[in-house]
């Protein structure tokens, strides 16, 4: 069932004449300018900004923009790896948004976000153990049944790791996909950041992911804090990440949507579209020879 959905979703992207492979995370400061574009890029809606909506301008703008271009729903607060039960109001709100926007992909992160009833608003890493694999798989099954569609899971940036880790990221996702049929939102920047932070080769790890299950890609910027890279979404995408993206796209056989994320030091729509254009140009000029492994 999930694989069938994936196929139809991919077709929906390629059949839309206005649709481009590259898109933007929808941010409120760009609402007005987006309306004035004759052809919109793909837009990724942040689930959490609308999941408890009561109307209001954000919904008004999103409704009108989503009527003109395919959308993707991306959340940060479902607490997929959390020990506490899912917030039912969140899932009900997500179901309503799915009904409303018919998104190509519905996603959230392989992370936990709250503990003891307190919300961190951060994506916190889980130990990649067999126990947590079963726990997360059960929650994905539950979600897919409740939402009646495939759920897609994103790899996060991390700054700490656990003594009990039994799988690499790619291996953990492979197991998850096999047991649940979930999709993967491959964040190329996150993979690059983690490779640097924990001393492994990003391209080798990329090849450990079950790439046939990738339904969407994220790219974003990060900063160097000396000891580690920090995923800030406030910079242009680094050239090394674009090179890794190039490799990822080469390995993927499908036309996967690529979304540029920018959350801080927000840019104008014009600047965002310009950055996408630059990334496309860089990809065209990329070759496998200029990849520098991170170890």
């Amino acid at each position, binding site marked *: 069932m999930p694989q069938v959905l994936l196929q139809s979703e991919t077709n929906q992207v390629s059949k839309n004449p206005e649709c481009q492979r590259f898109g933007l995370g929808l941010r409120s400061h760009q609402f007005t300018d987006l309306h004035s574009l004759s052809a919109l890029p793909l837009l990724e809606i942040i689930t959490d900004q609308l999941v408890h909506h009561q109307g209001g301008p954000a919904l008004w703008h999103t409704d009108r923009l989503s009527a003109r271009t395919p959308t993707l729903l991306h959340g940060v607060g479902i607490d997929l790896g959390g020990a506490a039960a899912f917030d039912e109001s969140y899932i009900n709100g997500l179901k309503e948004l799915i009904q409303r926007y018919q998104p190509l992909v519905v996603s959230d992160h392989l992370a936990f976000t709250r503990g003891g009833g307190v919300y961190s608003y951060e994506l916190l890493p889980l130990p990649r153990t067999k126990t947590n694999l079963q726990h997360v798989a059960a929650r994905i099954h539950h979600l897919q049944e409740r939402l009646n569609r495939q759920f897609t899971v994103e790899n996060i940036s991390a700054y*700490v790791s656990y003594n009990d880790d039994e799988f690499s990221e790619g291996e953990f996702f492979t197991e998850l996909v096999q047991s649940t049929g979930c999709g993967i939102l491959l964040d190329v920047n996150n993979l690059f950041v983690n490779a640097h932070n924990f001393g492994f080769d990003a391209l080798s790890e990329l090849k450990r992911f079950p790439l046939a299950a990738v339904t969407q890609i994220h790219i974003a910027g990060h900063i160097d804090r000396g000891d580690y890279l920090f995923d800030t979404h406030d910079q242009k995408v680094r050239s090394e990440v674009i090179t890794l993206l190039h490799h990822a796209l080469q390995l993927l056989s499908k036309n996967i949507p690529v979304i540029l994320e920018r959350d801080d030091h927000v840019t104008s729509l014009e600047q965002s579209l310009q950055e996408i254009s630059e990334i496309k140009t860089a990809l065209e000029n990329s070759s496998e020879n200029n990849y520098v492994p991170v170890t």
Partner: protein
Amino acid sequence: MSQSRDWQKTFVASVTLAESRKPCILEKILDKRYSHRLDAYHQSFLGRTVIGLSQALLQPLLHIFGENLVYEVVARYFAAHEPQHPSMMIALNFLPDFIRQSANDWYGFFFADIANLSLAQAKLLHGPDPIAGSAILSAGQNLERKIELPPALITTESNADLFAVWMNWTQNHPVADLMCFQQSPATNLLLLKMSALELTAIPISNTLLPLLIQLCKGVTIQSALDNLSEEQIERLDEKELHNFLSAVKS
């Protein structure tokens, strides 16, 4: 899962509360080579909160008060009010009052006002539609009433304009006149309705602005409509007009 529940609770506490960073339970399960980076999550949480609080006002906020002070105030707030709601905006609801009550220093009043303004903006964007009244345009008698506009400011959504409004507000508080800042054809405006220090934000598009300017003259709605050009009338959105009038009335 009870074990997970325990360490996840501790991990989240280490993110939201500075004083409980690097607690023992995490020391046991984290790879020692990287455990010092736990602080990155705490800093990110504070940064994300400040941005969530004041995306539009971030630069003036940090410029005036300094990054350390802003982060310190937010950290103290979360020590007193744990974030127990998935919406950061709701978790920040008590911040203006917290600052007013707890900050005895010079910045208390100004910082609280900024927090209030910022929250009003966010609530406007993500909050409910104003309760629509009955169909004002189709009810003839209502057109004969005058709208008593509250002491208000009109501002645009851009950073610079909001900063200008805030500066003006603090210098002239309470504001009794209606003022326009840098009207841009492509920009939505906010009418900020103030009662004492309470602030309500009402959305206004530029298509509604000509009518609003007429209403400022103290004429009836009908007279205000009569004074608009055909083009201005055509551009008026009926639903938006209803929402605006009912919001001002409330």
